[in-house]
Structure formats: C-alpha cells, structure tokens
C-alpha cells in the first residue's frame, strides 16, 4: 500500500468513526478526539485495522434491528435449509427439510413424520439428504417470497418449503432416476420446478449392466408442475424428457427473452464408466478427454404441448418424452461447451447464458438470440450419437472472457456486471458481460464453490452484496477438529472495488447454492390460528379447544384430546394398559408471539414443537409397562418445569387404579379391591 492510499484509508476510517460517535458523545472541544482515541485504543487492543473497523460498521446489526436480506442456504449433507440474516451473517434458523429436526419436532412423532415418509424409498427410511440448490419461487422472474424448493442430489428428491411459516410441506421422489443435480430451479412464474439427473442410470431405477451404458443408461430432465394455490407439487401433472447419458449438471430457466426455454450443461459426454480395479482409467480422467461437452437447450413450452398432445410414454407413472421424440420434435438441442463445465446461469435480461468451464479458463456467454435463430432456421452443425441436433459453438456464442483457473458459477448485479466463482484460484472475478471485460478479482478463503448475490438470479438484481461459499476454511476460524467449518464470505460490491466484509462459519454441512432475498418480501406468519395442522394448512379435524379435552377408549385404542397452555397440559394424566395404541391429538391454545411449548414422551422418541395455535397428531404404542413423565420441552414460563404430566402404562391385565398394578412391594391391603368396572370401563363415545 503506498502512502497516498494509506492516508486516504486512515482519513476515511477516522471520518467513519467520527460519524459513529458524533451522536453518542456530547460535543465539546475534545469530544471527537476523545472518541476516536478510545476507538483507536480498542483497535490496538484487538489488533484491528481501519478496514476491519469499516467492515464491522458495514455489517454490525444491533439486536432489535432486522437484517436487510435473508440468505436461504443449502445445508448440504445436513439435508436442511439454513436461514441467515445479511449483512450481519447471523444464523436465524435451520429449517428441517429432509432430515428429522428435533427442535421443530420434525420427524419425532408428529405430522413431520408423514412429510419425511413421502421421501422414504421402499424400505429405505432415508434420514439424510445431500441438499444442493435452494430456489425461491418467482413471479415474473422476480422472487415473490412465498416458497422455496430444494433438491436432494443423493436420492433424487425435491422438497417444498412454505416461507409463510418456514416449514417443509412436501417431499417428492423422482421415480425415474436415483440422483439429481440440476435442481431445484424454477421457471419465471414457478410454473415448473426443474430437476435434472446427475449420474446416468436406467430410467425407472431398473438394472442394466454397466457395459450397456450407452444403450440403456439415460439422463433426465424432470419438470415438476407446481400448484401455487395448493402450495404443492402436482405429481400427476408433472412430466420429464429423456436425455442422452451425458452427466447432466446444472440447469437454469430462461427468463424474459428466453422465457420458455431451459438450459443445462453436462460433462462426461465421453460416457466414461470407470473400472479402476480392472486397470481402466477412473471416471475423472475418462470424462475429461473431450475439449467440449454439451450445453442442452430445452424448449419446455413446446415439450409441455407435446405432453398435452399425448406424445409421451409413461414410465413408473411419469409421462416421459422419449429421446427420439425430443430430438425429432425440436425440443432438445445441444451446443458444445468448453471442457467439464459447471455453472449455467442466465443473465438478468434473459439474453445470455453464462457457462463456466471447470477445466477451461473462460466464462462463455451464449447468445439466446443466435441460438434461437439457428434453431428456427434448423441450421444444425450435425447430430450427436443419439440423433439430437447440434448447433455450432462459434455461431452460438457472444464471446468468451478469460476469467482464471476453474470458473464455476456466475451471479449478477444491476450494472451489467457478472461475478464468477473461480474455484482453483480461490477468487471471485468481476467482469462486465455487456462489453466482455474482466474488471477485478478478489481472493476468497478457500476453494469457492457456488456464489450468490442479492436477488442475483432474478430479472432485477440489487447489486450490493455477493457471498462466496467456500469449501475450505483452513486458517479462518478457531480449530474444531479435522472436520472444518465451511466459510461464507460476505463481499460488498457497491463501491468501485469489491471489499471482503465478514466470514461466517457453517458448521452443519457443506452448503452448495443459496439465494438472498430482500427481507420485506417475506410475509411470515407469527402464530397459527388455534388448531391448525401445519402440514395440511387446514384446521385439524381433531383440533381440541379449551373444555373439549377428553380421553376416549375403544378396545386397545386410546384417543387423547389434549390442550397445552401456560403452564399445563389437559389432561395431564394418561392411564393406559401395556400394548394400547395411543392416538394423541394436541392443540396449543396459545396465540402470543414466540410462546412455544414442547411435548415429549420420554423413552418413546416423541418430541413435538407446539408453536402458538399448532395442532399435532401422534400415534404410538405403549409397548412397555412403566411410568413415563411427559413434559414441556421449551422453557415457556416461570412454571415451565411444572408443565408436565404422567403416562401411566399398566402391566397387561391390570385394571386401572389398582394397587395390584404397582407390584408386590407397595401392595396395599385396602383400596385395591376396586372392581375393574368402576373406573376401567371408560366412557365410550
């Protein structure tokens, strides 16, 4: 740093500090001097530079003040979505999606079990996911703040999370493929949620020997139809397109000019199948021989019509447009793309598609106008091995920009700039996609994967923040054992130069993509109306109001209608016999913000979260005689510890209230002779 810069830096920092303290300190001859002296002392003590202090002032968000943005981030192997406030970079919530989440009572007895069960596959009660790409619902290509979708790469699933209460409402399983990657990406009005396969395999999850890779293995582009009014994916109205067995990777939907199209890239067009033990090259080298792979261009509007016209075949209940039909009807075209590409991102104006070549130093910008002209004029450069028409690379692109080593994903600002993550170099490259010029690079720490910017993949990005999502953190945080946290780095892109503001450790999984939405677009509910079943969105038929509590026995089934309100459960005693099935219906009667109760039955793996108004239904078997306290697991009030009750499970054949049930040690001579009929025969409905 030269002297000039240093002086500018110091004076700028002093100015910032002076402004920060002008309000707090009384104005006097030594007022400002005193303030900056004490800050300087603090800076010395904590070894902070002026840049550090500036960054702190840029991001510090006092308690009680909301962040300007919310980042909704992939939780990676945790199978969840993370909600993070920005610019403060504070974790607000881990949303249970594919993995049980005990705090939210998600997957521990209540309705969340049913959502998770939607994602089970046969006998496999999947308890995790590899969450990759969360995508916010859009209206006219802009985030509307209503829903977020996310894919599970490991098991080819897509989840729907409602942002009115940040709860997962649906998991759909792709029955045709067993891994996905190009998802969950939405079309501009959330007509569809796109999910494309990753590793080719026989469609419908059938078996075929790997030697028949080229003939039997296939890729797939799934178009999940979203029913916004219901807030659910309509599986019956969803359809797919069969693709060649190139390893399809990331996808993006066109917008504005390119609305109606989807773009996805691929690698391993060599169709390498490994065989390391047999002395064959591993997939990593087999898949990296060609200089070009294929960008897939899909006309989904046309495909939608084909499906409506019945030009599809049904596999495992899904309407699939065959590869042959896709090639012949002109809904699938391929264009060369430089070596092992990764990112595939449409510019905010929808005119260009930016592809980063992982093993190429360029970002390539494809012109949608040129592609459209070639397609409309059927000016094909040839066909691939599966008869899919190909377009000439040079005739399709607008140009290429030398970015650096390992360009991956690209996001945008509102000034015509693109920000590309550069993996091998550990940097973010800022370049102008209008005049195709590299402007600046900033180092990040380390091995950046995805990148996000504020509303950066909408038709109107905000242009103030970028977040680098780094795979490695090496020396950035305090050590916590050999498994290191991931590192989210917030970068200020408002000024002429990018500035690194703050690092946020992610200690729950390896996040992939994330999106950043303006906080005021989220219309979040604060409480549920009393009795709401949050998984159906309706008042539960078993919702229990004050005064309606009861226990109804019918044979070996016991229905408990319970309410929870500070600081008691009604009923607080449940008396059953060993082997009875208990259907617990519990409603929180609370309606005050943040007044949550929990309900756990110990030794039964049951834990519910009862947010104000929420209703939950749990069915379990009292399989072992004993005394099981149940209690509220949220410190709800001063008498929280007293918010408890007992599940009393009598040994089989013991009448209720009978001291004989208590065992020989405490057998009392009197009071144990109550005939079973006295209290055992429960009132029936």
């Amino acid at each position, binding site marked *: 740093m030269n002297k000039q810069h240093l002086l500018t830096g110091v004076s700028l920092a002093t100015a910032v500090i002076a402004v920060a303290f002008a309000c707090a300190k009384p104005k006097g001859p030594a007022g400002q001097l005193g303030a900056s002296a004490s800050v300087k002392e603090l800076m010395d003590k904590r070894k902070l530079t002026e840049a550090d202090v500036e960054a702190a002032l840029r991001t510090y968000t006092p308690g009680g003040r909301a962040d300007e943005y919310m980042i909704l981030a992939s939780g990676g192997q945790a199978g969840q979505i993370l909600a993070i406030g920005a610019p403060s970079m504070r974790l607000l919530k881990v949303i249970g999606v594919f993995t049980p989440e005990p705090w939210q009572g998600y997957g521990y007895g209540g309705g969340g079990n049913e959502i998770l069960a939607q994602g089970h596959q046969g006998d496999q009660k999947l308890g995790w996911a590899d969450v990759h790409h969360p995508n916010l619902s859009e209206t006219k290509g802009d985030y509307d703040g209503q829903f977020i979708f996310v894919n599970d790469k490991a098991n080819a699933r897509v989840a729907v999370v409602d942002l009115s209460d940040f709860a997962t409402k649906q998991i759909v399983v792709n029955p045709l493929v067993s891994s996905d990657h190009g998802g969950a990406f939405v079309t501009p009005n959330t007509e569809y949620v796109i999910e494309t396969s990753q590793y080719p395999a026989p469609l419908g999850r059938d078996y075929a020997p790997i030697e028949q890779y080229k003939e039997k293995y296939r890729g797939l582009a799934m178009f999940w139809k979203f029913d916004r009014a219901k807030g659910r994916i309509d599986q019956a109205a969803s359809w797919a397109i069969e693709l060649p067995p190139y390893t399809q990777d990331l996808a993006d939907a066109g917008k504005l000019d390119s609305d109606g199209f989807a773009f996805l890239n691929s690698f391993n067009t060599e169709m390498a199948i490994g065989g390391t033990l047999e002395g064959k090259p591993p997939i990593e080298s087999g898949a990296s021989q060609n200089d070009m792979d294929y960008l897939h261009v899909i006309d989904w509007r046309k495909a939608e019509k084909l499906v409506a016209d019945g030009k599809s075949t049904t596999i495992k209940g899904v309407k699939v447009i065959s590869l042959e039909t896709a090639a012949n009807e002109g809904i699938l075209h391929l264009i060369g793309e430089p070596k092992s590409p990764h990112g595939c991102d449409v510019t905010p104006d929808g005119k260009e598609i930016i592809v980063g070549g992982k093993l190429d130093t360029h970002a390539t910008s494809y012109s949608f106008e040129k592609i459209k002209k070639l397609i409309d004029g059927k000016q094909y450069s040839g066909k691939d091995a599966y008869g899919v028409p190909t377009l000439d690379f040079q005739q399709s692109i607008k140009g290429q920009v030398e970015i650096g080593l390992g360009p991956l994903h690209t996001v945008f600002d509102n000034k015509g700039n693109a920000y590309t993550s550069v993996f091998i170099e550990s940097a973010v490259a800022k370049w102008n996609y209008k005049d195709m010029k590299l402007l600046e690079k900033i180092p990040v720490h380390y091995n950046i994967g995805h990148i996000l910017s504020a509303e950066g993949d909408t038709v109107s990005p905000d242009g103030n923040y970028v977040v680098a999502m780094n795979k490695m953190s090496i020396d950035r945080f305090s050590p916590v054992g050999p498994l290191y946290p991931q590192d989210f780095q917030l970068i200020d892109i408002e000024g002429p130069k990018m500035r690194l503001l703050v690092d946020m450790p992610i200690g729950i999984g390896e996040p992939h993509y994330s999106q950043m939405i303006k906080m005021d677009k989220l219309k979040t509910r604060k*409480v549920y109306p009393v009795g709401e079943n949050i998984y159906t969105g309706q008042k539960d038929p078993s919702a229990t109001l004050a005064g309606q509590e009861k226990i109804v026995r019918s044979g070996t089934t016991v229905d408990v209608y319970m309410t929870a309100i500070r600081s008691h459960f009604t009923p607080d005693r449940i008396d059953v016999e060993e082997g009875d099935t208990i259907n617990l219906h519990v409603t929180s009667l609370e*309606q005050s913000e943040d007044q949550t109760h929990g309900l756990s039955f110990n030794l039964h793996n049951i834990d519910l979260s009862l947010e104000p108004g929420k209703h939950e239904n749990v069915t379990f078997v009292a399989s072992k005689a004993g005394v099981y306290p149940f209690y509220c697991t949220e410190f709800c009030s001063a*008498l929280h510890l007293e918010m408890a009750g007992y599940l009393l499970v009598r040994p089989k054949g013991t009448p209720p209230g009978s001291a004989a049930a208590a065992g020989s040690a405490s057998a009392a001579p009197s009071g144990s002779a109550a005939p079973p009929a006295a209290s055992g025969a429960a009132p029936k409905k």
Partner: protein
Amino acid sequence: MLARLKLALDGFYEFLQRPLFLWSRPVLALLVIPIILATFKPLWHFDFEAPQYPKGLSFEVFSYKLESGHDGNDLREINILNHYIGMKKLDHVELDDLDWMPFGFGIVAILLLRVAAIGNVRALVDLCVIIFYFGAFSAGRFVYKLWSYGHHLAPDAPVKVEPFMPVIMGVKKIGNFTTYGRPVAGTYFFTAAVLGVVALTLVHLIVGRIQTRREAARREKAATA
C-alpha cells in the same frame, strides 16, 4: 309562616310545570348524539408493560364488549398471566355488566328525547337525577368489579399475592408489569352529555328562580298599589 311556605311550594310546582326554554329542546335532542357515541366507543383503556412484551399489552372496555390489542390476543394473554395469581377471567361472562350497560345508555337516550318532546322542567329534573344516578352507579360498579377482581383470588393459585386494587386511573406497578388506566372517548362523551343535562337543569333552576322572584315582586307591588 305556613302560608309563606305554601306560597313558595306553589311557586315551585308552578315552576316544574313550566315549559322549557324553546332553545333547550333541540339541545336536549342533540345530546342523544354523545350518548350514542358513548355506547359504541371505548369507555376505558388499560395498558400493560413488561420487559418480555416489547409491543405491550392493552385492552379497552366498551359499554357492551371488551376489545384487546393484537387481534384480541392481548386479553387472552392477560388472562393467561392472571391465572397464575388466581384472578378470575376478564371476559364478558365475568363482566356481565356489559349485558345491561348498552340498555342503560339506550334508556338515557330515550329519556332525553322524551324530555325534548314533553319539554317541561319536571321531566328535565327527572332526567337529571336519573342520568346522574346512572353515571354514578356505572362508575361505582366498575370500581367495585375491579376491586373484586383484585380481592377474590383463587386460594389454590400457583403464585400467591396479597389482594390488591387494580389500576383504574394513572399508573400502578404489579409484579413485573407497569399498568396504566385511563378514561377514553366513550367516557368523555357520556360525561359531556351528563354535564349538558346538569347545566340545562341549572340554567332552568336559576333563571326560573330569578323569574319567580321578579314575578313575586311584581305581584307584591301590584298588591300594595
């Protein structure tokens, strides 16, 4: 002596029969408006402040209902908190005065119109007495009800507190809560109507007395002449 008293009483009875000043009849009819407003506007407002309620809690008493902040949830919240000290529920069932209060206001309104129609002093004096009594009785019931809430605490309540007088006007600290009470629009409208009737009555009494004196003097003069 007796004759003098009789004379005075005759004068008073005669005064009671007198018609009201013409201008005061439309004024009486117009006083129905604040009574109607008092029926439908909140009468009393309570605020509760505590650290864990950054948005505060509040509720208002109307002649016929209770209404509380945050879509009615504040009253539910206040009741949940009050149950810890064994206080009875603040609701329409317990505060059954809300059943007859609006009828009281209605009767007052009808009586006002009656006086405006009949238009004599006797009816005005009746009205003055009734409206004053109605106001005082309602206020007394209100104070008694609050007292009763604070003094009839369930003996098995989880938290034992000394019986107390809840806030009516001004500020009172109860536990972690600072409570505030104040009259609002409805009470002001009703008070205005009461004061209007009282003022009209006074005007008639004073002017009537002056006129009676004058007439008596005139009669005396005529008698001596």
